[in-house]
């Protein structure tokens, strides 16, 4: 098998372009390190450098502008194989667009090498400046020169945790520097400074690469060389089926309701509304009923209202909405604010409201009950549902008592007391 990494065809770059040197020295470095082409995955993206993949005999993946690092991170993680080498070719434009991906790859220390082709501009689209363009460097679209210093991508990569970070001058034979980066564990980043002969030279006649770097105080050096642990996949060992996370609820009680009953329970966050509703729903299943349950609460789950909509029915439930419930149970001021519109829509049914709350006008009967004082705020939801079950008889309150009693909560709630409250 031909072990060359390049096909031998003439590379497609402009005369004098630094990209040619990077491709050739990448091949030399890999050959010197003894890699085989089919153990190497070259990931590139948009930019002049990206058209090189056709000339590589390794596996090649060609993605979106600026996203090659994230794409390669997925490949590295998916392979999870130290005997494979993932190399990313990207430009200074791609590094700008995908800076989050670079920081993230460094932070995770994905086992791969980034080769940043930094010619200080976007070459494929006409020579626009990138965020890596040094102070004073001119481009065709910025003839006055960059007015601020570009990001030091090596500093960023180092700070984010990459194991190996180096900036090299893309002049002469730099295959050894590349080989050093390729042989590191974890994320290695090499920024290669180079010249775009088409746009860089034209906008900066007579420019010398070393001089540009010197004037912009861009240091050519190894920034980081450490051997922190590289990324390892956090596999779950034999995760249990989610079906083992709940109990089936065989019918052991009865209900004689003939049509669906819709209940809304509205109270305050942190007062057990959702938990109580869940026990109520499970208890209804043990009474042979079909049930749906959904919660409503603000995105800040620890404050404000907390409400639950429940439907219990002898027949299968299709429509799960409850624009006008048959029973509205309001436990607190938060619950009242939330449920006021619902209450005003009700033409049938009953409203049960905590006795501490203002009396409300409604088209249906409003029954004040001392939920909070009798049971305490934390148990008011349970008490209210017990009371509602006793009052309505839709299914035995005993079913809910049994459900709670057999749960971990059974030891924490004095159910007998709640049950016996008036």
């Amino acid at each position: 098998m031909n072990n060359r990494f390049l096909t031998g065809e003439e590379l497609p770059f402009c005369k004098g372009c630094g990209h040619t040197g990077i491709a050739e020295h990448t091949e030399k470095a890999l050959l010197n390190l003894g890699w085989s082409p089919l153990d190497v995955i070259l990931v590139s993206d948009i930019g002049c450098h990206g058209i090189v993949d056709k000339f590589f005999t390794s596996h090649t993946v060609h993605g979106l502008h600026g996203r090659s690092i994230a794409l390669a991170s997925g490949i590295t993680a998916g392979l999870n194989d130290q005997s494979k080498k993932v190399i990313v070719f990207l430009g200074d434009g791609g590094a700008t667009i995908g800076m989050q991906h670079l920081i993230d790859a460094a932070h995770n220390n994905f086992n791969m090498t980034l080769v940043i082709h930094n010619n200080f501009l976007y070459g494929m689209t006409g020579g626009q400046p990138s965020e890596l363009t040094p102070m004073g460097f001119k481009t065709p679209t910025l003839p006055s020169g960059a007015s601020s210093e570009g990001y030091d991508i090596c500093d960023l990569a180092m700070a984010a945790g990459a194991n190996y970070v180096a900036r090299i001058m893309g002049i002469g034979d730099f295959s050894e520097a590349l080989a050093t980066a390729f042989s590191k564990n974890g994320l290695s980043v090499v920024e290669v400074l180079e010249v775009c002969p088409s746009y860089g030279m034209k906008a900066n006649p007579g420019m010398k690469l070393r001089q540009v770097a010197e004037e912009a105080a861009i240091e050519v050096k190894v920034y980081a060389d450490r051997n922190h642990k590289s990324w390892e996949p956090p596999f779950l060992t034999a995760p249990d089926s989610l079906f083992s996370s709940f109990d089936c609820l065989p019918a052991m009680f009865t209900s004689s309701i003939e049509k669906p009953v819709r209940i809304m329970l509205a109270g305050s966050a942190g007062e057990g509304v959702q938990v109580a509703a869940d026990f109520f729903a499970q208890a209804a299943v043990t009474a042979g009923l079909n049930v749906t349950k959904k919660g409503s609460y603000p995105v800040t789950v620890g404050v404000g209202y907390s409400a639950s909509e429940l439907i219990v029915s002898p027949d299968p439930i299709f429509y799960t909405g409850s624009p006008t419930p048959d029973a509205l149970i309001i436990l607190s001021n938060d619950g009242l604010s939330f449920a006021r519109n619902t209450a005003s829509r009700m033409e049938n049914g009953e409203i049960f409201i905590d006795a501490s709350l203002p009396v409300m006008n409604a088209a249906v009967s409003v029954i004040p009950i001392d939920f909070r004082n009798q049971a305490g705020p934390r148990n008011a939801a349970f008490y209210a549902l017990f009371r509602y079950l006793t009052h309505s008889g839709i299914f035995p309150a005993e079913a809910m008592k049994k459900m709670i009693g057999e749960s971990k909560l059974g030891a924490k709630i004095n159910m007998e007391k709640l049950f016996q409250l008036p």
Partner: protein
Amino acid sequence: MKREVRHYFFLRQDKDNINNQRITRTFAPLFYRSETLKSSTALIDSSLVITESMVQAGADVFIGYPITPANLLYAYGSRRYPLFLSAPDEITTLQWMTGFAATGKLPVTATSFPGYALMLESINMAYMMELPMVIILVQRLGPATGTATCGAQGDITLLNGMISGGFAIPVMSLADTQDCWEIPAKAMQMASRLRTPVILFTSKEEVMTSYSYDISRFSGISPIRRNNWDGSGKYKSYRANEQLIPSFLPVGNPDHQVRFTASTHDEEGNLQGTSKAGLDNSTRIHQKILKNMAEYTYYELDDAHDATTLILSFGITSRAAHEAVISLRKKGVAVSHLVPKTLLPVPPVYYEIASRYKRVIFCEENYTGQYRQIMFGYSSPDHISGVNSFGKMIDPSEIVREVLRDE
């Protein structure tokens, strides 16, 4: 002592043959039967069922960024997938997923519109690279960040045009708990076999509501078997078979060079500009989806004898429509009900079904009637109408009213 409860009874008839298309068809004749509630009934939410289905079908990894109302899918994912990765954003999510898929893994994510919008270019990339994955889109109220905690069905038009060029991408919808078990596994199978991203289309009200359900109705799911290329000679990453599907090999395999690319490319994966080889390959990807969709066309048709009106609804709204149909039939009004599970590309059989009725009423929880517009245009014929809502679920009574409008 057990009480007698009435259960809605579904008679399922699989792989019927209509118009020479191999389709799976489910009839739902509307009558009740008595049945004792099963001891295998539990209170479960659809996010749990979807997750378990995906994993049993062979999903290798869940990669995600948390967003309401896909929260539960993320939470279950962290305990159930063999590998769960929290990504820093949605672009990264899709890039990592594509990377995993390039190595032969089957990735899954779940998001909502704001995250989906960020994923769009990357989904186009995965589509062009022909790499399998399933993206669960849990719809919420838009535009923009809209109302995170309110359900919606407002992203259908987006999906219909999301691949630049108007190319087809499979979109599957879930109507009930049984679908949440069966369809995700089928979506995963389709993604793997057709080498394509597949969108699983749902909404907040479907995945964040708990339902009592007899879990013994969930039949076993066989894990997907990947048929990687085992031919002789040179492997070409995009050389397609007669079904227009290219055989797969992962990057990193020691025997054959593999090329994946998002840019226009030939069958070897080399960049092509606008050469015939490149353009032919691009249009093949669209044709691949169309050619194979018949095998993945799922819908329920509850066809009432003598009905002249067809209600068409999907996802959460189909549940309201179901109740409307029951209510109408109790009044003696004959009405049929079509529930597409395969939403996009629109299966031709839906047009054939719609053509049998004098009236077709599209029920969808969006402001403009998106699926109606996709099927019948922005100026739909007089016999096509819609029941729509914005910011709230459609109530069965609204559907009943529309059916009875001219009676």
